[in-house]
């Protein structure tokens, strides 16, 4: 169900922008919405980070996969259980660049043996592999797109394009990242659809971004290899947007506006969705804090001054009543008065 609702949502976005642009609303899908989407993304992203930064993280949360630093003669594992800032930076880098936590992913399987079923935990690295492929392809594709956003084209684009099309298949040259990202999105999607356990916990907010990104990639690939959109007209148009002096969208096929609109939808959806793990991963308390709970004194940072009401003061307040009720008191009535 969640899958089909997401699919219908994405198809609706596609149809609205495609037919909208065809009907002459290029200014809406090609200018108004992109500007709104950029503003929405920047503000939403900043707001989200700010709202997270408001939560205090008063103590270390050492969920570790390694031996803590203690005595010299006990070998510790500084990358998994760092006790200094620099090792923690190392752990963060590995997490962000190589998805180390995901590498530890396991799956539960049940072996049927003669003595009945037995549970086993296997390492499951497919998710890690395809997630890694997906993210790096996305990055390369995003960076390659800078040929449309700037003039002269930034220095890194040419090298990326060369490496990406190094097999020189066809013309325009086939980019490996285009093939790989489709394979990766496909895997991540099929995993949710066909693995019963994952499907059970999958929501619209899981399918929708995958399908949206899949739609962006498919429409981009369609433009490059099949319909051959007029790149010159696109660059002139996009440069108009990015120099704040928009030009007419003459001669650009509706499919471009669909591609662009799906990207805008992604930008607007981004800050309010699970995709915010882009910023959130940097704020993970279990990853970004050194495990030095036992080496340093951690003082509660927002510790309020406490008001104490001691037993002595309490007795002073109620001595007469206590004596009257026959309760024992530390200071008898006559002494307390003096």
């Amino acid at each position: 169900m969640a899958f089909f609702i997401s699919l219908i949502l994405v198809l609706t976005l596609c149809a609205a922008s495609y037919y909208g642009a065809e009907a002459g609303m290029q200014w809406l899908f090609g200018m108004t919405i992109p500007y709104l989407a950029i503003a929405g993304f920047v503000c939403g992203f900043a707001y989200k980070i700010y709202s997270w930064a408001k939560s205090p993280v008063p103590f270390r949360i050492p969920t570790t996969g390694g031996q803590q630093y203690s005595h010299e003669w006990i070998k510790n594992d500084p990358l998994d259980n760092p006790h200094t800032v620099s090792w923690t930076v190392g752990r963060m880098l590995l997490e962000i660049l190589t998805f180390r936590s995901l590498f530890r992913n396991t799956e539960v399987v049940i072996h049927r043996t003669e003595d009945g079923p037995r549970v086993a935990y296997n390492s499951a690295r497919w998710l890690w592999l395809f997630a890694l492929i997906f993210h790096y392809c996305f990055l390369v594709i995003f960076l390659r797109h800078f040929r449309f956003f700037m003039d002269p084209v930034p220095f890194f684009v040419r090298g990326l394009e060369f490496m990406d099309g190094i097999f020189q298949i066809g013309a325009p040259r086939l980019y490996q990242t285009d093939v790989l990202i489709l394979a990766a999105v496909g895997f991540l999607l099929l995993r949710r659809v066909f693995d019963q356990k994952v499907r059970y916990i999958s929501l619209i907010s899981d399918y929708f971004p995958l399908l949206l990104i899949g739609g962006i990639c498919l429409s981009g690939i369609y433009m490059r290899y099949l319909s051959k959109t007029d790149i010159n007209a696109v660059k002139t148009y996009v440069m108009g947007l990015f120099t704040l002096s928009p030009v007419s969208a003459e001669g650009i096929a509706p499919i471009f506006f669909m591609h662009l609109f799906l990207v805008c939808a992604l930008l607007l959806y981004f800050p309010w969705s699970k995709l915010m793990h882009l910023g959130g991963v940097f704020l993970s308390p279990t990853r970004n804090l050194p495990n030095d709970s036992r080496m340093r004194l951690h003082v509660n940072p927002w510790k309020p001054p406490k008001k104490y009401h001691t037993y002595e003061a309490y007795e002073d307040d109620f001595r007469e009543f206590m004596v009257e009720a026959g309760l024992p008191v530390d200071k008898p009535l006559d002494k307390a008065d003096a």
Partner: protein
Amino acid sequence: MYNAKYIMPGLVIFLGLITFPLWFNVLSCTRYEAPQLALPEDQQECIIDAKVMRAEHMTLLNDWRDKYVRDGEITFTAANGKIYDMSLMNTCMSCHTNKEQFCDSCHTKNSVYPYCWECHIAPRGNQ
């Protein structure tokens, strides 16, 4: 806000990078001119309609190369029955005589670097 001294710079750097094309183009007062093609003066028609050519020239040349080199097919018949040599140098470049003013004017602006010229010698007009 906690740990602002780490989070704020991170946030500013990220948003700065991701919006780089926008503010850089605006601050540097970039003005983009669509490339102007130097079209042949003495010719009226291309071997295919110019509009199709604009989209499909790379596929066509790629096909030509494969047909010529692998299948020994050496001529191309246009829609109007005219027969041309399948040759980048002798057909295309005989009208479009200047690579810099024709091919490159779009290619460079859009970061397209075809490997045609790793084998073929680019004509440079009358120089």
